[in-house]
């Protein structure tokens, strides 16, 4: 008799809990470096995700599921990111985590989500995040080596055979430097100079003088503002005539503004499509989405949408798509892995059990700066 009551009670409890579960909203946790040195990544991430969640809930949720968003500021600090990730999982009971914004923080958080079996969609670009593939870890920005490959393909088409590297000594730059050297070997491009600069350096003429003496066919600079803008000015100052390539890290109008129109003239870089959407062909499948995002962002925040905020947008679309299977962490993970042909901001995603990024060369366009504006490089 007692056994029966226990059974009935637990059955009732189980029933109750499942009904509660079905009506519960989807809880999305987010870790962004809203303040601190990487705030230029985390801040657009935060406002984009907040905007999307507000929009979705106003329409009654994603496919009828209301969304609850919990955002924590990691301040770009890996140990803080780990603490907050644990808090999101244990206290807030989130089903999926978006972020962190930097590669260092993401690498620190990975062991936590793998252990707790909560899917993570990182907004950081480092290749280590999804290579090798980890069961619960995904990321939205294209790998650095895709951008590097885009540059080398373009160089090959222009018969440029040797390159001089000038990379920044932070996470973005050193990852870029490795990818560039690796990809150069594969593409048969000769690296004749390999220089670096500090993220706070204010003059790179010494490095560029050395590069000038190296007889390279082109310079590839890898960094985020303001360094590359100073490099661009220094190149002009030294009267260096060979082509200058920048990375996708400076694909915003801010870079042209800092470098100055006349100094940036002719600089080429692989840009995410968001930066140049008004120059894309009318048939481009991403065009409408990019335009809508940029307009909505401008309307709300009076600045143009940044590529970095786009990574949070991608994460949100991936989650929306993955929701078909259910809202538990395991179901979301399976759903994410099965996303195919998802048209988003950073590109078109094709996930698989062996590919947790899902972007290819089409994520970038080679652009050239002419008269202070982007134009597609031919």
């Amino acid at each position, binding site marked *: 008799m007692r056994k029966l009551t226990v059974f009935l009670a637990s059955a009732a409890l189980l029933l109750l809990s499942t009904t509660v579960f079905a009506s519960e909203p989807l809880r999305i946790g987010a870790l962004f470096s809203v303040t601190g040195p990487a705030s230029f990544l985390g801040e657009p991430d935060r406002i984009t995700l907040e905007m999307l969640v507000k929009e979705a809930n106003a329409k009654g949720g994603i496919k009828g599921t209301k969304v609850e968003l919990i955002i924590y500021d990691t301040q770009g600090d890996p140990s803080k990111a780990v603490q907050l990730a644990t808090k999101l999982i244990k206290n807030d009971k989130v089903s999926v985590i978006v972020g962190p914004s930097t590669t260092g923080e993401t690498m620190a958080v990975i062991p936590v989500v793998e252990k707790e079996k909560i899917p993570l969609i990182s907004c950081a670009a480092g290749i280590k995040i999804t290579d090798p593939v980890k069961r619960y870890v995904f990321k939205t920005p294209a790998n650095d080596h895709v951008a590097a490959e885009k540059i080398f393909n373009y160089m090959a088409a222009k018969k440029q055979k040797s390159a001089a590297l000038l990379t920044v000594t932070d996470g973005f730059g050193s990852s870029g430097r490795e990818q560039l050297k690796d990809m150069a070997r594969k593409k048969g491009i000769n690296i004749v100079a390999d220089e670096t600069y500090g993220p706070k350096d*204010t003059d790179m*003429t*010494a490095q560029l003088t050395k590069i000038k003496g190296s007889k390279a066919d082109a310079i590839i600079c890898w960094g985020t503002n*303001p360094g590359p803008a100073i490099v661009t000015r220094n190149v002009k100052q030294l009267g260096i005539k060979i082509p200058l390539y920048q990375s996708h890290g400076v694909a915003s109008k801010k870079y042209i503004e800092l470098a*100055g129109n006349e100094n940036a003239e002719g600089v080429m870089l692989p840009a995410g499509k968001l930066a140049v959407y008004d120059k894309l062909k009318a048939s481009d499948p991403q065009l409408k989405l990019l335009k809508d995002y940029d307009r909505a962002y401008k309307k709300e925040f009076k600045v143009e949408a940044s590529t970095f905020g786009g990574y949070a947008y991608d994460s949100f679309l991936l989650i929306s798509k993955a929701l078909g299977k259910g809202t538990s962490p395991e179901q979301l993970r399976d759903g994410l892995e099965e996303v195919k042909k998802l048209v988003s901001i950073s590109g078109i995603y094709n996930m698989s059990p062996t590919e947790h990024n899902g972007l290819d060369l089409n994520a970038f366009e080679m652009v050239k700066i002419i008269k202070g504006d982007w134009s597609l490089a031919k």
Partner: protein
Amino acid sequence: MDIADQIAQYLVSGLSTGAIYALIGIGFAIIYNSTEIINFAQGELVMLGGMFTLFFLNSLQMPLPLAIFCAVASSTAVGVLFERLTIRPLKSPTPLALIIITIGGSILIRGLTMLIGGKDTHALPAFSGSEPIMIGTATILPQHLWIFALTALAIAANKIFFQYTITGKAMRACAVNRRAAGLVGIDVKRMVFFSFAISSSLGSLAGIIVAPLTMTSYDVGIMLGLKGFCAAIIGGLSGGLGTVLGGLILGVLESLGAGLISSGYKDAIAFIILLLILFIRPQGLFGKAQTERV
């Protein structure tokens, strides 16, 4: 480009960067020479100069010379206010307490600038164009000439003020012995106040004049301040030629190090030199050893 031409460019680049360090270093030296305080908030005043100019230039649409004047005035006000609110209320200022206060002040100023002005990096227009000037085979920008000129002017004015004016002499007296200076009728607090006013206006002027080259944002003060501090230490914290030479040596070594050895070790080279000097000649390359009188 052969190696001789390269070295010429390294030297020219090094001297022009070094002049920036020197100019900032002089600000450190002035406060030290009249108060024996190392003001670690000096870098933030350099930053404020650039940020204020930007504000007056863009938000209030002022012409450049007026914007510069207003920026120097505002940064000086901040420097003076900083002294009033943090240094002066201290009853018995020990060097350690003062250092911690100035570091705290620098974090506060940086944080407030970030909150009010945002985190973006901004470019200021160059004073007289950006057409490179050839010196032999090496090139510099017109803005560098402004920096050299201001540095020269700063040393000269400094020399005259501290050697030949009564206020300057009084300020030096305060550094030698606060109590004795007070006993002979020098208003010590006023002298400290003066030294903060002078060094913040000089610091902000330095910040304004380097901003077209280095760009400006809320956090440029850290690195520029640190390099300026190195320059002042190498020069033995003298308000004049010593600090300037210190800055130039630092700039040239950095540039040669980056060019001839490896750009990865550029900052390491600079800081190793700083450490060596602190170990071997704590009074600086050009400073006289202090004698303790009994």
